[in-house]
């Protein structure tokens, strides 16, 4: 039985009744009304009752709510004209397209990176973690990433590459069109969206930890060049101290997502997401790609894996 089919078949559920929708709407209206300072006395009584019932769930909800961390030195520079960004990204694409390679039949794709998350979600906030991954074309892979688990974690089954919510196989990756217009449309279709701003993140996903061919990498950068409001940050150094060029998209009321690439070969050096909260607090995630390439073998996962609390 195919897992995806099984999940689809079991996803069906009825919608809410009209009464349930109305009841929830009323409860929310009371909360909104009180917040607006227009609560009636009866609403206060109902609210106090409701508050008592909600104490436990409020405490639980707090665990998913706020992310606060120290502000990183992000090397922000005033973005220049979008045309500069387009030119820089297209140049990266040209450089990427001229690289040797294409690995449709390799056994594994190996990537070494370091990443850092600043967030109060994680116990290792601010700590730089080393990540090694062996993605299998047809065989199972392996992962060494203390942020996921200690030791060597098995990646069961052939590897997949995930722009957005998708899971593309190695063969799928090599079947993607390398014409930029066709690739853009294919990605939008796969993502089931017409929002081209989502392509910045999707292309970053496909440029990282993936055996994308030089031709596909070139096309991916050409797709990036067409993302609305992509900005050139300029020449920066990545987390490993390497020089590169950064482009970003600024997401209003969120922060920004940034990619740093090597001008000489169009390789992705680093990507970073920074989120700023209303009170100026900052959450960030940065991953720096140190090396990658095809390999014929992968380490054997620990026998005790996966065990996870």
């Amino acid at each position, binding site marked *: 039985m195919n*897992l*995806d089919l*099984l*999940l*689809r078949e*079991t*996803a*069906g*559920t*009825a*919608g*809410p009744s009209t009464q349930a*929708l109305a*009841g*929830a*709407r*009323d*409860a*929310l*209206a009371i*909360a*909104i009304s009180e917040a607006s300072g227009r609560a009636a006395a009866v609403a206060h009584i109902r609210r106090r009752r409701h508050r008592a019932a*909600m104490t*436990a*769930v*409020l405490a639980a*909800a*707090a*665990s*998913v*709510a706020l*992310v606060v961390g120290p502000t990183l030195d992000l090397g922000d520079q005033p973005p220049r004209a979008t045309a500069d960004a387009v030119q820089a990204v297209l140049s990266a694409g040209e450089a990427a397209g001229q690289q040797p390679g294409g690995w449709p039949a390799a056994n594994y794709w190996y990537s070494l990176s370091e990443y850092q*998350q600043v967030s109060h*979600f994680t116990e290792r906030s601010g700590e730089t973690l080393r990540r090694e991954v062996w993605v299998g074309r047809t065989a*199972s892979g392996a*992962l060494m*990433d203390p*942020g*996921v688990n200690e030791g060597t*974690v*098995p*990646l*069961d*089954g052939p590897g*997949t590459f*995930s722009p*957005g*919510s998708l*899971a593309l196989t190695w063969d799928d990756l090599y079947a993607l069109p390398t014409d930029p217009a066709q690739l853009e449309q294919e990605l939008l279709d796969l993502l089931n969206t017409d929002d081209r701003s989502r392509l910045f993140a999707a292309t970053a996903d496909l440029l990282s930890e993936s055996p994308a061919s030089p031709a596909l990498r070139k096309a991916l950068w050409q797709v990036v060049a067409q993302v609305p409001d992509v900005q050139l940050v300029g020449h920066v150094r990545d987390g490993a101290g390497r020089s590169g060029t950064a482009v970003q998209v600024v*997401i*209003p*009321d*969120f*922060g920004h*997502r940034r990619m740093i690439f090597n001008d000489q070969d169009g390789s992705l050096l680093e990507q970073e*997401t920074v*989120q700023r909260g209303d009170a100026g607090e900052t959450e960030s*995630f940065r991953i720096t790609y140190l090396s990658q390439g095809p390999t014929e073998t992968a380490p054997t996962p620990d026998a005790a894996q996966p065990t*996870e*609390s």
Partner: protein
Amino acid sequence: VSPEPADFDLLTQSHTRPECFGVLYERHAHAVFRYLARRTGPAPAEDLLADVFVVAFETRFRATRHETRSCLPWLYGIAGNIVRSHRRSRAAPHSANQDAYGVDWDAVDTRLDAAARRSELEHALSTLTDVDRELLLLVAWEGLSPSEAAVALGLTPTAARSRLHRARARAQAVLDQPCPTPEGVS
């Protein structure tokens, strides 16, 4: 014609104009209800729907944001906590039903042709950790991207992607195993 405001624009506006939060309810009530119904059954979901949105409203100043500017990952995170509270309140002490991210399998679609499927899925997912199971279901049932599901579960995007891959492969491996034959049946 101006486009509809993004969720987080509304959320920001709701800080000073609380009534703006009502638009988020109209936008996402059905999706949140389906999330709840898939995990608790329709009847409890009808009761819990209000709790999710009232808690969300109360904690709107501290919302976890995602670059898609959708509130759904954040709402699912709150809904997940409320489901767990609900299950803990109903379960006997030390019951297995107190799973961190449990699924009430009786709540999964009980159509005749889906009953066997439900058992298969329950079996396949039983090999996963609670977080990995919820991650897989957030992507498969609720249609979140791995990075959106990471927001709901408090994971890094990278960890979510790795965990998802592993969870999918492990669940598929269980499905690929031959079904055990009942004793006495040849």
